[in-house]
C-alpha cells in the first residue's frame, strides 16, 4: 500500500485537475492512500509519500510551476516525482532542464506502464475521483459538474492552438452513459455537464451523443435535476474517506454545520424537538461520527421530508466551443433538442464574419438564447479587426433582445512561451495594456448593451484607437476625468498628432522607442497627461497641466468638482 500525493500548483483555476482525478481513481483501485494538495505541501506531509504527481497547466505559469516542483524535489527523491499535464507536454525539454527530473510525462496516460506499473490500465479512461477535491479548502468555481469527453483531438491544427500537440489524433471515445452513471452511483447526482471535447462537430456519432445525453436527463426544457440529500452525500464521503485512509474530520464538521443550519427548516414541533436532541447529542459527543451513524436513518428521513426537492433544469456546456465552419442545419437541429447553456462560438478573425453570423443566426433560429463568444486578439489581427468583431457582436445582439450574450476577448499567448509578454505584429504594449484596463472594468466580459460598448470601445475604429492611446488612468476612471476636463484637453493634444507622431507616441508609451527618436513638440505637450493619477487630479495638482492650458489657449480645467 503506497502513499500518493497529487499536487496542483496554487493558481486560481476554474476547473479541477481532471488528470489527477483519474490518477486518484487508479491508485485507489490498487488500495493506495491518495491525498491531494494545492501548492507547496509541508515537509512533514511530503516526507511520508511514496510518490508525488504534479500537474501542470498553462505554459505562462511555467516559473511558478517550476518553483512548486523544486519545493517537492527538496524533500523527496526525484525518481518519485512525476510531472504531467499540458505545460509538461508542450515544454517537456524545458521541464527536464530546469528541474533535473526525468519523469516528465507527455500526453495522456493511456497505459499505466508509463508511470512504471505493469497492469497496463488506460488511466485516461478511468472515471474521475471527486473525493480528492475535499482534501483542500479551495473551491473550484466549476468543480461540481460532470466532466466528460466524447472525442479527443481536433483535425484543424490551428497554429495558435495546443490541441494538435496534446491530442494529435482525433478519435471517438463516447461512453457518456457509463461515465455519468458511475459518477452518479458513487458521488451522487450533479446538475450540469461540461463536455470538454475540442471539436465535437467533427464527431460522426453526434446523433448518438445527443441521444445519450437525452437519456441521461439533459433534454431541453426538461427539469430532471433534484439536488441529492446533502446528509447522505456527506455521509457517503465520510465512509469513502475512512475506507481510503483519508482524514474525514473536515467532512464531519461540515455535516454538523449543515445539520445546525437545517434545524430551522424542521417545522413540526415533535420532529423539531427530536432533531434538536440529536443535534445536542452530536455537539456534546467526543466521537461525533458515532452519533451521526447511530441516527443516520432518522436524520435522512427528517431531511428528506423538509429539504428542497423542486426539479431544476440541467445544462450542457460544450466548454471548448462549437466550430462555426462545421455548423449546418442538420447538426444544429440535433443540438437544439438538448439544453445547451451557454452556446459558445469562436470569432477568431474578421474573415470569419460571414460564417460566424450565419452560425449565430442559425443557433438563434433553433431556439438558443444563451451565447458566449470568444474573440482571439493579439495574433495576426489588428486592433481595428478586434473592434469590428466586437461591434458586429453587439449589433447582432441588439437585433435579438431576448438573448443573453457575452463576448470574451482572449489575448493570444504562444504556447511555447513561459510568459504572457508576446506582442502581436499589429499590436503594441500600450494598446494591450489599454485593452486590459477596459476589459478589467467588467472582469473580462464585453456585455451586449450597445451604449456601454460605445462608451467603452468608441463609436468607430478611429475612436477605439484613440481610446487605446488614452492614458490608462483616464481609461480606468473615464467619467471622473471627463468631468474634470482632462480628457477633453488630452483629446485636443491628440488630435494635433499626425500619423508619424502617433506611431512615435505608441513606441514611447510602450518603452520601445529608438534612442535616436526625435520627440516633436506635439508629443511633448501630450506626454505629461500620462503621469496624472486620479489621486493627484482629485487634489487638483494642476501646475503641470496649467502650463499646457496656457499653450492651448483659453481652455481651463474645472476645479473643485
Amino acid at each position, binding site marked *: 500500500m503506497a502513499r500518493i500525493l497529487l499536487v496542483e500548483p496554487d493558481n486560481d483555476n476554474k476547473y479541477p485537475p481532471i488528470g489527477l482525478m483519474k490518477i486518484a481513481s487508479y491508485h485507489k483501485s490498487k488500495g493506495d492512500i491518495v491525498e491531494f494538495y494545492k501548492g507547496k505541501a509541508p515537509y*512533514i506531509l511530503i516526507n511520508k509519500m*511514496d510518490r508525488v504527481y504534479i500537474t501542470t497547466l498553462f505554459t505562462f505559469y511555467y516559473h511558478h510551476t517550476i518553483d512548486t516542483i523544486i519545493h517537492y524535489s527538496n524533500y523527496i527523491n526525484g525518481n518519485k516525482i512525476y510531472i504531467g499535464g499540458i505545460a509538461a507536454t508542450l515544454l517537456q525539454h524545458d521541464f527536464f532542464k530546469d528541474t533535473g527530473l526525468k519523469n516528465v510525462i507527455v500526453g495522456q496516460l493511456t497505459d499505466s506502464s508509463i508511470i512504471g506499473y505493469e497492469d497496463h490500465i488506460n488511466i485516461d479512461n478511468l472515471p474521475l475521483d471527486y473525493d480528492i477535491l475535499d482534501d483542500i479548502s479551495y473551491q473550484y468555481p466549476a468543480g461540481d459538474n460532470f466532466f466528460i469527453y466524447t472525442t479527443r483531438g481536433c483535425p484543424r491544427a490551428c497554429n495558435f492552438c495546443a490541441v494538435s500537440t496534446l491530442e494529435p489524433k482525433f478519435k471517438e471515445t463516447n461512453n457518456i452513459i457509463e461515465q455519468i452513471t458511475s459518477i452518479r452511483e458513487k458521488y451522487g447526482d450533479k446538475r450540469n455537464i461540461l463536455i470538454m471535447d475540442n471539436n465535437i462537430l467533427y464527431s460522426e456519432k453526434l446523433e448518438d451523443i445527443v441521444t445519450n445525453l437525452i437519456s441521461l436527463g439533459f433534454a431541453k426544457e426538461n427539469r430532471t435535476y433534484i439536488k441529492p440529500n446533502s446528509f447522505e452525500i456527506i455521509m457517503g464521503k465520510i465512509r469513502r474517506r475512512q475506507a481510503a485512509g483519508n482524514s474525514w474530520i473536515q467532512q464531519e464538521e461540515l455535516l454538523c454545520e449543515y445539520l445546525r443550519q437545517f434545524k430551522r427548516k424542521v417545522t413540526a414541533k415533535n420532529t423539531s424537538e427530536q432533531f434538536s436532541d440529536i443535534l445536542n447529542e452530536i455537539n456534546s459527543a467526543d466521537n461525533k461520527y458515532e452519533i451521526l451513524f447511530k441516527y443516520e436513518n432518522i436524520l435522512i428521513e427528517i431531511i428528506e421530508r423538509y429539504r428542497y426537492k423542486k426539479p431544476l433544469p440541467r445544462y450542457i456546456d460544450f466548454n471548448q466551443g462549437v466550430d462555426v465552419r462545421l455548423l449546418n442545419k442538420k447538426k444544429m437541429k440535433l443540438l437544439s433538442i438538448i439544453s445547451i447553456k451557454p452556446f459558445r462560438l469562436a470569432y477568431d478573425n474578421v474573415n470569419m464574419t460571414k460564417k460566424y453570423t450565419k452560425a449565430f443566426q442559425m443557433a438563434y433560429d433553433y431556439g438558443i438564447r444563451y451565447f458566449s463568444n470568444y474573440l482571439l486578439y493579439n495574433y495576426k489581427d489588428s486592433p481595428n479587426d478586434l473592434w469590428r468583431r466586437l461591434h458586429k457582436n453587439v449589433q447582432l445582439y441588439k437585433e435579438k433582445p431576448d438573448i443573453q450574450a457575452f463576448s470574451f476577448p482572449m489575448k493570444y499567448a504562444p504556447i511555447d512561451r513561459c510568459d504572457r509578454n508576446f506582442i502581436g505584429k499589429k499590436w503594441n504594449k500600450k494598446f494591450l495594456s489599454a485593452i486590459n484596463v477596459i476589459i478589467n472594468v467588467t472582469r473580462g466580459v464585453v456585455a451586449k448593451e450597445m451604449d456601454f460598448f460605445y462608451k467603452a470601445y468608441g463609436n468607430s475604429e478611429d475612436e477605439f484607437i484613440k481610446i487605446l492611446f488614452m492614458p490608462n488612468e483616464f481609461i480606468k476612471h473615464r467619467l471622473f476625468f471627463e468631468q474634470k476636463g482632462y480628457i477633453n484637453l488630452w483629446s485636443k493634444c491628440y488630435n494635433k498628432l499626425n500619423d508619424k507622431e502617433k506611431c512615435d507616441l505608441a513606441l514611447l508609451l510602450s518603452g520601445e522607442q529608438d534612442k535616436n527618436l526625435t520627440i516633436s513638440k506635439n508629443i511633448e505637450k501630450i506626454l505629461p497627461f500620462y503621469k496624472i493619477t486620479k489621486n493627484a487630479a482629485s487634489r487638483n495638482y494642476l501646475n503641470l497641466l496649467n502650463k499646457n492650458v496656457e499653450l492651448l489657449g483659453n481652455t481651463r480645467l474645472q476645479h473643485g468638482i
Partner: protein
Amino acid sequence: YSIKLNGKELRKNYRENKHVLDSNIIFWDLRAKSGANDTPGDKIGILWFTFNRKLTSSKKDDHDYGIIVRSKNIQMGNNDTFADQTFNSKDYVATYRELTQMLRGVYGELLINSPTLKDNARREWFKIDENSYYLKNIITDFMRRLHKYRYSASKYYNNAELNNKKRLKEALTDLVSVDTNSINVNTFNDEINEDNDSIDKKIGFQFADEDMPRESLTKRRAYEELMTLIYEFFKKERKNEIFLKLRAYIKRNYDVMSK
C-alpha cells in the same frame, strides 16, 4: 512516544485530565530523502514544539523562546538559530525581525542524531554539504508554516470573519500535520480563541479603552503602557488631579491630531 519508568508508563497531568502527550506538543519526524530504489530515508532527528497559542505578540522578556537545536546533545547556536538559518536560505520567508519575532511564544527542540550531519568548528551549525542543506530546507519549511500560521492568526484575531478562520485552520493544519499528531484542529482553534479572550480581559485596558476605543490594538497597548507609567508617577507624587488634567489634554488633542 511512550515514556516509561521502571517498566511503567509515565504520565503526568499537564492540564485538567490531560496527559503530557495531550498537551498539544507537536512532533515533526525528520528523515533523510529516500533512496533511489525506494529504500526509506534514515531517521536524522526529531523536532518537537509547542506554542503558547497566544495570538498577540509575546513580550520581549521571554528568554526561553524558540527551537533549541541540539546535535548529539550539544546545543547549536541560540534561540534564534531557526531564524538565522531561514534568513540565510535561498527562499524568502520573512524579514529577519519577523523571523525572530515569530519564534517568541514557540518552545521546542530540534534533536539531531545522524552521522551524516557533521558539526562545524564553531558548533553553531553543521558543515555545509547536501545533508545540512537538506536540513536547512526542512527548517525553512517549518518557518514558512509558522509564519503563515502567525500571519493568519493575527488576521483572524483582528477580523473574525469566515474566510480568515478558514485560512487560520489551513495554516494550523499545515503546521501541526493532523494525522501524525492526532490533533483535532477544530478544538485547538477554539481553545486559541478562549485563551486570547481571557488574556485581553486580564489586561483590561484601563485607559486605552476609554480614551481611544476605536484605535488599533497595537496603539491601544502602547498608550496603555505609557499612561500606566505616568499614572504610577503621579500617584507616587500624590498629584492625581494633574494626571487627570494631563490625560484629558492628551485625549482632546489626540482626537484633533488624528483627524
